[in-house]
């Protein structure tokens, strides 16, 4: 699926940029003299901007990944202590009634549950720096249970849907920007945000569970046939 999305994002972007450029060149050829110097073709055209953006994004990707290493190390270190001390297991047992339903494939006190729980908690508190390392830890644990290492397991997808529709109790960055732009009441978005995110989580989980149920039934009938 990601294959298709990726392919079409790139293809459509190229077509649209090329189309815009052709249209602009035909209808409004650039003035020969623009205040001193003419804009280079690379800066002026959509296709030029597009190649610049692509190259820049590649650099950004590396910067983000390398920037994550320090924070990753910190949180994975702390998580390791919590794991060895048995703290993660205690957490996992507390939420077992919920996780049993959401993640039927995962054994009850598996370390992945503790890591997922920590990730969701960090997201709720708006600690996005901590959330990513904890989430990646959870993925690593889920991968250990995954029979096919190249394909996403049901538990992984369920976790990701919970994660991306994350309910944030304190959407810190949005509040900070509102405050900086002179909002009278920057925290006003908290309750609407929670309602919207809850709705997203409900829809996401329902979708995932319906697909899983459907696939299970399909597999069963195929097995009988």
């Amino acid at each position, binding site marked *: 699926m990601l294959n298709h999305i990726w392919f079409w994002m790139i293809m459509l972007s190229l077509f649209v940029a090329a189309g815009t450029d052709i249209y602009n060149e035909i209808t409004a050829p650039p003035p020969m003299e623009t205040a001193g110097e003419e804009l280079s073709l690379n800066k002026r055209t959509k296709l030029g901007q597009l190649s*610049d*953006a692509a190259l820049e994004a590649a650099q950004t990707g590396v910067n983000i990944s390398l920037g994550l290493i320090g924070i990753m190390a910190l949180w994975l270190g702390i998580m390791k*202590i919590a794991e060895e001390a048995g703290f993660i297991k205690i957490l996992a047992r507390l939420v077992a009634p919920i996780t049993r339903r959401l993640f039927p494939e995962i054994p009850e006190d598996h370390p992945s549950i503790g890591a997922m729980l920590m990730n969701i908690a960090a997201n709720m508190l708006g600690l996005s720096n901590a959330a990513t390392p904890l989430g990646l830890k959870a993925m690593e644990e889920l991968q250990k249970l995954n029979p096919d290492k*190249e394909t996403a397991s049901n538990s992984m*997808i369920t976790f990701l849907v919970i994660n991306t529709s994350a309910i944030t109790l304190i959407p810190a960055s949005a509040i900070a920007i509102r405050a900086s732009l002179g909002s009278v009441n*920057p925290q006003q978005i908290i309750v609407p945000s929670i309602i919207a995110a809850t709705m*997203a989580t409900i829809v996401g989980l329902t*979708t995932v569970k319906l697909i899983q149920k459907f696939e299970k039934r399909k597999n069963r009938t195929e097995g009988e046939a």
Partner: protein
Amino acid sequence: METLRLIIDWASVLAIPTIILLFIGYGGYKKIPVYEVFVEGAKEGFEVGVKIIPYLVAMLMAIAMFRASGMLDILTWLASPVTNLIGMAPELLPMALMRPLSGSGSLGVMSELMKTFGPDSLIGFTASTMFGSTETTFYVLAVYFGSVGVRKTRYAAPAGLLADAAGLITAVLVCQLWF
């Protein structure tokens, strides 16, 4: 409202020290060699950081091309009949479309909308609610699956996007009622 702000500020200041105290404190209480175990765990940080690079580059590249091409304007135009139905301001569409793709991009759109219309206008209020209630789905997909080397993501992207759509639409509706 003042007390609420105080609680929020303190909660964000106290969250990390509390977690560190709780985890390392409990480790010490359980007689774990905390320093050694910390270092052992921290080692993984480097591996994961390097492992996600190709996935992140692939995803960010496609998103950057998408943004630079002007596709967003075309999608905004295509989606406008649907958004008119729920009474959503057309100015909010780029925000809704950008949110699952790019964190910094949607942050920029949100700031721009609040500067133009004011943070306490319906548009500014809705834009910040949209930002606060959803995540950058494509980034999460790339990084999380990339970190464990999963390439076949099955129905993860459509399910995540459907959840985003539900969240964004709810944000629009709730903000209209709230306002």
